[in-house]
């Protein structure tokens, strides 16, 4: 008999760990740890062989084996091992090794886990409560790895990094893709790598503390496990800073005399805990469980078992045979670019176009005739200025190397880096990427229908009409990172990306990936790998998912043929022929007669566009403002981000970065980034005041009804009647059930019941707070008026503040669920009420009604229901703030969240009285009266907003201009939720309308809905049954109606906002798409807005949309000119006909005086057409919107 051992194996997403344990002593006898490079089975086999060598005397019969980790499943059977769930394994290891531990935080490559040990008060039993990250937040370790590459920090340096809490920038750590997007932006604005990594660490820690703990507080002592926690000291330091902060904030008692290093511990050999725990688990099992079978079955599984398992569930390969591949490659291979050659002494006059992309930067040299001379490329090294300098130097050196001289006659930039370059090197052109790509594609392929650009991070799809952008779709944060994913996948297999296609074409089958965000795809990849798919198949499968992500996820148009038949593919990803093959197959399958072109300079399409635009601008302007090639190469720059650069113009104190550029001629410039509002654009107070004044002027000129409504919804609404006296009479109803089960109601008159004077006095000082969130945006005036009419001091009716990033980062730590951001942010508003409003002056109650039904103007709707999440949030909040400690009770605040329905006013009145009668000591009459006044106030609020909206609509129609109608849910009025996107358009000179501000006067609306009413499809303009009968969701129904209105009003265009995960908006996407497509209404849809503000992406969208809107406006103006011409031609014709008629009558010796009068009047009118037009009103600026209205005669006059 040999000495028995128990093996624990942990097969993770990136590594395999093994321990050999003595079952008697529980001591680890042997251990090892290695990366598997996606070959889990091979790596496990290798480790097992080594164990065999280390324990030659132990026979197979004396080995038991327990296996854990995400990749463990398929290895269990061949090895004879028993599977142990990872968290269970870790829990058992911790219980065994550290009985005094209160909680564990483990960050792995894919998963993050938190285990909190709690004592059950009833039984005294210690139980472990575990939580794992949801699938939307997986890949923490992988994200850190990817970001280290992006910031260009070598891993040795990262391990030396110290956490500095004073230099942190915004990074969204909710999801790996979001984080990467933010990291790219930080890199591009020149933030030092160390600060970015610290910001990422802080974001990950805060995300875990706020979400993964599910609102629970970590108990001490805390054990930090997993790769990142073990190897990154700055991450450990960050935990040691943030965990005690949450303890202090929540009043958690922890030993303050113990050093933090002992309270928050990183144990030695932390990476082995899961493997060791698997063994501990095994020791609980009976002896027949986990009997090791030897390695033969594992070897056979590696060699043959894999293919058998894949079976029929796999998809087709990328190519079926060699000839198909050859034909494809011949047709689509991008011809190798031949750089221009120069003769010695030649002066090369050319422009440079530069595209500062997310992962790489590209530059092209183009001569005056538009001929492409040279291309240069560099992977991003962390600073856009440095990248640009390197590229320029490269171009210069290549020209000079041939003895020629380079004379740069213009410089243009596009991409992430364009803003900073515009400032530092005075670029002639700062063109938005979409336009640059469009210019480039049309230059090479002329009249095309669709341009699809896939870069490292973004997907841009442009739909063309008459050589210009008709509309466009861009990837959002959730569909970003596709190009990067292909590269990352190649990296994982240790392949250069250039060999991707070659490998993918070898696959005989492929796993069927579902489209989705890069994080989900990576989760899928782990799963398929576990199932046994090999490198080639995974590469092929991932290439095949790319077109799905483009056309199904980003574009979301299943009928591709409707987009046109000439498609251009461009962007760096097109160099990967596997991706091109998948795209071509996908498009050809759906558009059989389609033509697919691959841009000959795929990666440089943006830079070429920038160069072409530079040529145009410089020619037109006659000169360049570029500082010159040598000056740009010699440019010195310094990025600064500290206390000094912090914006102090508002309490947000945005952390800004100043990039100072020192040009060789001695001039300097400063580029400021990182601010969240326009005040941060400047440094001095005077400059800031000027900016604010300009903005106010702008707001006056171009009204923003979204901002107006958001403000007014929470202000007192004047005009409420005072409470009736006790002497006045009131009609009451007595109800009773009859024998037959019916209800009998009997009316009678009686005196109005008033509460006592003492109660009234008490109400004057009663303070009630409500969160400024969700549907309170559409019902705020109701509740404020209700309380004010009952005698509460208006200053004591308090709403939390508007959402800001700071509010969210400070108060977003209580949630146990992860719904849409509008619902999630409510906890931060409660935090603000508890820790600020209540602190200033104590609150008596917080009122946050469950609004099951909300007011809606849509007629004949099935229902006016709220979204279930929005309606249920008050109960979720109650759970979050009473779970561990009662935040209400401890502060003496009463929390009230009754269910109320705006569809049932009678019931609403009864419910309000039931809720408030004791707290406010009111009578039912008082409550009912206040509720009636509240309903009336809501109507007045509506009317006020609509009056202004009507004035704007009539004005723009008269002026032939455009207004942007923002369609969203009520809470998208919150600037913290709409990320100030409406304001961006306001600043571009467009008046902004909200749904509420569109007049609901049916007579006024019938002009636009005349055809629909005539056809009988609808019976009132406020109906949407003709497009959406399942219209029970009030806010969605109002959105759909607004889209219908915009489709019928020539001067209204749309900005469609939806929050990420919005379940009530999702079904309307297709409907709204249909409505706006058929009516050709320009629409910008942002369907995934979330907590973080994707500034770069918003900028591209705003700029591109403004470009589209300008075209639309031109069309409108053309239309007006044509309409005027028609009117003139009709008048002339009528005059001609009337004169003929007159002649006809004269011939019959007859006379018609009315006819003569008509002729005289018309002749005068026709003559007037020839006269010069009267001068425009000199006092008004034509570009401004003046609020006016139409009088009964149809003329637009002052309001």
């Amino acid at each position: 008999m040999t000495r028995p051992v128990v093996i624990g194996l942990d097969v993770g997403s990136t590594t395999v760990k093994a321990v050999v344990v003595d079952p008697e002593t529980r001591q680890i006898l042997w251990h090892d740890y290695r990366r598997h490079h996606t070959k889990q089975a091979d790596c496990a086999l290798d480790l097992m062989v080594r164990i065999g060598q280390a324990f030659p005397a132990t026979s197979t019969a004396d080995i038991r084996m327990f296996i854990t980790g995400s990749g463990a499943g398929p290895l269990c059977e061949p090895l004879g091992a028993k599977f142990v769930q990872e968290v269970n394994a870790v829990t058992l290891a911790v219980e065994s090794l550290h009985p005094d531990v209160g909680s564990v935080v483990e960050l792995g490559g894919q998963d993050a886990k938190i285990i909190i040990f709690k004592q059950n008060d009833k039984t005294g039993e210690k139980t472990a409560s575990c939580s794992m990250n949801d699938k939307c937040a997986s890949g923490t370790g992988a994200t850190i790895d990817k970001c280290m590459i992006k910031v260009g920090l070598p891993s040795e340096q990262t391990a030396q990094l110290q956490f500095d809490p004073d230099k942190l920038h915004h990074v969204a750590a909710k999801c790996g893709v979001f984080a990467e997007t933010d990291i790219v932006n930080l890199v591009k604005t020149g933030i030092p790598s160390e600060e970015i990594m610290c910001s990422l660490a802080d974001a990950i820690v805060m995300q875990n503390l706020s979400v993964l703990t599910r609102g629970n507080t970590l108990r001490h002592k805390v054990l930090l496990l997993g790769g990142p926690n073990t190897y990154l000291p700055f991450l450990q330091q960050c935990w040691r800073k943030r965990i005690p902060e949450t303890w202090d904030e929540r009043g958690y008692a922890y030993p303050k005399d113990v050093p933090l290093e002992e309270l928050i511990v990183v144990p030695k050999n932390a990476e082995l805990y899961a493997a060791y725990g698997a063994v501990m688990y095994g020791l609980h099992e009976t002896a027949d469980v986990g009997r090791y079978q030897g390695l033969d079955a594992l070897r056979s599984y590696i060699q043959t078992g894999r293919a058998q398992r894949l079976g029929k569930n796999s998809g087709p390969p990328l190519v079926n045979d060699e000839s198909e591949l050859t034909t494809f490659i011949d047709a689509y291979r991008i011809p190798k670019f031949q750089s221009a050659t120069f003769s010695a002494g030649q002066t090369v006059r050319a422009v440079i176009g530069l595209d500062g992309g997310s992962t790489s930067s590209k530059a092209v040299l183009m001569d005056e005739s538009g001929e492409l001379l040279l291309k240069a490329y560099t992977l991003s090294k962390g600073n856009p200025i440095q990248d640009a300098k390197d590229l320029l130097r490269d171009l210069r050196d290549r020209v000079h190397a041939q003895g020629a001289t380079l004379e740069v006659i213009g410089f243009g930039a596009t991409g992430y880096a364009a803003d900073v370059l515009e400032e530092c090197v005075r670029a002639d052109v700062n063109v938005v990427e979409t336009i640059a790509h469009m210019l480039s594609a049309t230059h090479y392929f002329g009249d095309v229908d669709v341009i699809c650009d896939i870069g490292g991070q973004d997907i841009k799809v442009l739909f063309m009409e008459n050589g210009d952008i008709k509309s466009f779709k861009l990837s959002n944060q959730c569909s970003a990172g596709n190009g990067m994913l292909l590269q990352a996948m190649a990296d994982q297999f240790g392949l250069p990306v250039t060999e991707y296609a070659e490998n993918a074409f070898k696959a005989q089958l492929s796993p069927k990936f579902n489209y989705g965000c890069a994080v989900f795809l990576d989760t899928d990849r782990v799963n398929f790998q576990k199932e046994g798919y090999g490198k080639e198949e995974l590469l092929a499968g991932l290439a095949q998912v790319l077109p799905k992500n483009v056309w199904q996820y980003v574009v979301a148009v299943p009928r591709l043929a409707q987009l046109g038949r000439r498609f251009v593919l461009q962007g760096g990803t097109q160099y990967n022929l596997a991706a091109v093959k998948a795209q071509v197959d996908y498009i050809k399958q759906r558009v059989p007669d389609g033509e697919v072109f691959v841009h000959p300079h795929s990666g440089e399409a943006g830079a070429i566009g920038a160069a072409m635009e530079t040529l145009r601008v410089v020619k037109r302007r006659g000169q360049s403002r570029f500082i010159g090639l040598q000056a740009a190469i010699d440019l010195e720059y310094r990025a600064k981000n500290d206390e000094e650069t912090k914006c102090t113009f508002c309490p947000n104190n945005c952390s800004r970065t100043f990039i100072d550029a020192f040009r060789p001629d001695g001039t300097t410039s400063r580029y400021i980034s990182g601010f969240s509002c326009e005040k941060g654009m400047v440094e001095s107070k005077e400059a800031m005041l000027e900016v604010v004044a300009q903005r106010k002027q702008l707001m006056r000129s171009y009204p923003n009804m979204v901002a107006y409504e958001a403000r007014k919804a929470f202000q007192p609404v004047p005009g409420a009647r005072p409470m009736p006296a006790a002497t006045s009479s009131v009609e009451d109803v007595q109800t009773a059930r009859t024998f037959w089960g019916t209800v009998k109601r009997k009316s009678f008159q009686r005196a109005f019941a008033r509460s006592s004077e003492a109660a009234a006095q008490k109400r004057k000082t009663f303070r009630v707070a409500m969160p400024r969130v969700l549907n309170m945006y559409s019902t705020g005036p109701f509740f404020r008026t209700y309380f004010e009419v009952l005698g509460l001091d208006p200053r004591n009716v308090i709403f939390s503040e508007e959402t800001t990033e700071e509010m969210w980062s400070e108060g977003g730590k209580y949630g146990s669920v992860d719904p849409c951001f509008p619902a999630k942010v409510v906890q931060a508003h409660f935090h603000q009420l508890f820790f600020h409003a209540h602190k200033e002056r104590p609150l008596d109650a917080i009122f946050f009604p469950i609004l099951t039904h909300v007011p809606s103007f849509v007629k004949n709707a099935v229902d006016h229901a709220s979204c279930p999440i929005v309606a249920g949030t008050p109960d979720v909040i109650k759970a979050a703030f009473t779970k561990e400690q009662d935040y209400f009770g401890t502060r003496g605040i009463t929390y009230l969240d009754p269910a109320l329905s705006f569809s049932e006013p009678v019931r609403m009145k009864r419910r309000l009285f039931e809720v408030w009668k004791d707290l406010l000591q009111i009578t039912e009459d008082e409550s009912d009266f206040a509720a009636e006044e509240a309903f009336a106030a809501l109507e007045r609020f509506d009317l006020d907003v609509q009056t202004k909206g009507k004035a704007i609509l009539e004005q723009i129609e008269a002026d032939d201009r455009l207004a942007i109608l923002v369609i969203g849910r009520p809470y998208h009025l919150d600037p913290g939720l709409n990320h100030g996107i409406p304001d961006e358009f306001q600043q571009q000179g467009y008046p902004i309308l909200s749904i509420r501000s569109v007049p609901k006067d049916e007579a006024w609306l019938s002009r636009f809905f005349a055809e629909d009413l005539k056809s009988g499809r609808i019976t009132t303009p406020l109906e949407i049954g003709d497009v959406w009968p399942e219209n029970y969701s009030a806010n969605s129904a109002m959105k759909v109606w607004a889209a219908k209105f915009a489709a019928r009003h020539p001067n209204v265009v749309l900005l469609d906002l939806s929050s990420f995960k919005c379940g009530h908006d999702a079904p309307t996407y297709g409907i709204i798409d249909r409505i706006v497509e058929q009516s050709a209404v320009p629409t910008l849809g942002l369907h995934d807005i979330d907590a973080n503000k994707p500034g770069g992406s918003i900028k591209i969208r705003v700029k591109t949309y403004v470009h589209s809107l300008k075209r639309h406006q031109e069309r409108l103006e053309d239309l007006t000119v044509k309409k005027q011409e028609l009117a003139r031609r009709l008048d002339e014709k009528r005059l001609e006909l009337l004169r003929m008629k007159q002649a006809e009558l004269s011939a019959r010796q007859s006379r018609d005086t009315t006819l003569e009068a008509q002729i005289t009047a018309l002749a005068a009118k026709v003559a007037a057409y020839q006269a010069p037009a009267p001068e425009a009103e000199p006092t008004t600026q034509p570009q401004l919107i003046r609020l006016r209205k139409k009088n009964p005669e149809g003329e637009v006059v002052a309001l």
Partner: protein
Amino acid sequence: MPNMNDALNVDAELARFEQEERARLGLDAQVDHWTDSMIDPNFTAKERPHTTLLVGGLTIAHDFLVEGALRGLGYNCRRLECPDNDSLRFGKEFGNVSQCNPTYFTVGNLVKELCRLRDEEGLSAEHIIKHFVFLTAGACGPCRFGMYVTEYRKALRDAGFDGFRVMLFQQTGGLKQASGEELGLPLDPPFFLAIARALFSGDVINALGYRIRPHEVEPGATDRALMQAKQEVYDALHHHKSVVLALRRARKYFKDIKVDRTQAKPKVSILGEFWAMTTEGDGNYHLQEFVEREGGENEIQLLAFLLLYNLWEIRHDTEQRMLLKAADSGKFGLADTDVGLRLAGLWVGELALRGVFQTFAHAVGLTHFTLPDMDEVARVGHSHYNQELRGGEGHMEVAKLMLNVMHNKSHMTLSVKPFGCMPSSGVSDGVQSVITELFPEAIFCAVETSGEGAVNFYSRVQLFLFKARQRAQQEIDAALEQYGITREQAQAFLAGSSYGTALHRAPHVACGSGADLIHEIGPLVGRTRAEQARVHAARLADRTYRLVTDDVRAVYASARKVAPYLPAVARWAASEGLSMVPALTQSLQQNVKQWLTPTPEQQAEVARAEASEAAPAGVVQLRKKVKTALRFKTEQPAAASGA
């Protein structure tokens, strides 16, 4: 130019000129605004013979039996297969972005089937649109479920089946069908009765299967019995025979299954979003199968629970509003509603539902199965999850977790929901966090399905199953210890005893079925006949006492509760009941007529036989054959298709 000989019509000339000018200037383009042309599916009685109803969306058993019921009603009907990952891919391609998983799976499943008909069976899209209709359950809010039909229309249109008819059998309404002609799918009492019989028999068969399978000794025996049982009921539904008798016949298949209930099997109560918790395929990663594979016993949620909840909703909403000073309008308002009639109807409905369910359950051998008391469920959950919050399972998820813990109903509660499910992951899970704090002993696992990442999904379930398994083992060990017996002794006692049969259900004491059984047989194992008789006598006395005290009290309490409604019930019976009679009679007459009238082929055969002069003996034989054929006329095609 107008002809000068005619009187000049200025207006007509001007109109003609305007038309020309508009065309010249490009101003004649009228915007034809989009309207949905698929809103009113029109399915008429005339189309019925050559139209196939596609059904799907419930469990495999339910879909199968609904097919049988609809065939029995004379429809051509075909059920869709259980949605799989290919359905998800179709759903994602043709559905809106950001939909929930059940939408993608169910919508994609229909599109997948239609594409199969087109691409594999070679039917043209026009033919499919004309000859197929999809019938499914629907709702009208408040989560995405209520908008499924919107999604069906979008996906079908985009997949090239513009105009395909989706008929919605609304949860709380009728069938959305506006047609001047005779309805293709009339929602009459026979229709409801047939569907109800299919659904309830599906429920009891499913519940029994999940009760037995984890304990079966021979793997696959339960599945075999389930197949046979479903076929029995299918045939009964198809041929208008008694479902109760069919279930009774099915009972024997289950009775013969060999089981061993002495193993520690953690009981896992599956809650969550309705589709995710009831589907049995890729939509929830074959969750039920996985739990059983991991050694657990599933406690599933039945369709009957949801129907009871729907009845409770209407009753609660009515009672809450009936005594207001005035009746509100709108969906929930009671304007123009006879409150008494409605409440009486609900009471009768609930009584009928419970009665039919229990009759079916007893017939098939599903004994000691208690349908939940919806008032208790609402009461328990209300302080945490407001009863007026609707959507999905409403307050039931929270309340059922509490009841599971309070009443020792299961070792573990597994709440499964699609990624981003609004009522379940958005609200219930948030509230559950306080429940698990209040009941630290609860093993609660909330897990989302997304169609990707089965590894993570299984891993999460295993995480909690580990604890549940430990608890189940402790529970059974404690029970054995309490009675001082070993597992082997218990097994020996059970062998050959009625306690050890598949259909036996021990009274509820502990969480697990095994522990319950040990508690039941513990006092009997190793005892003499006399001692056993004493135990039996004591149990009988206890049961009788409880019947007299608890049950009579409960009956009295419910009689008191119901008494005020009795006059209204009488009115209900007078109005609704009488109006149902003609429809039932008519339906019966139609069936009899159909049964008695020979088909043209049979008539021709008879005529041919009678006209034949040769082989008189053969004529006699043929007449006999035709007579038999006539009697079983409705059964022949059914037998063929049912097989």
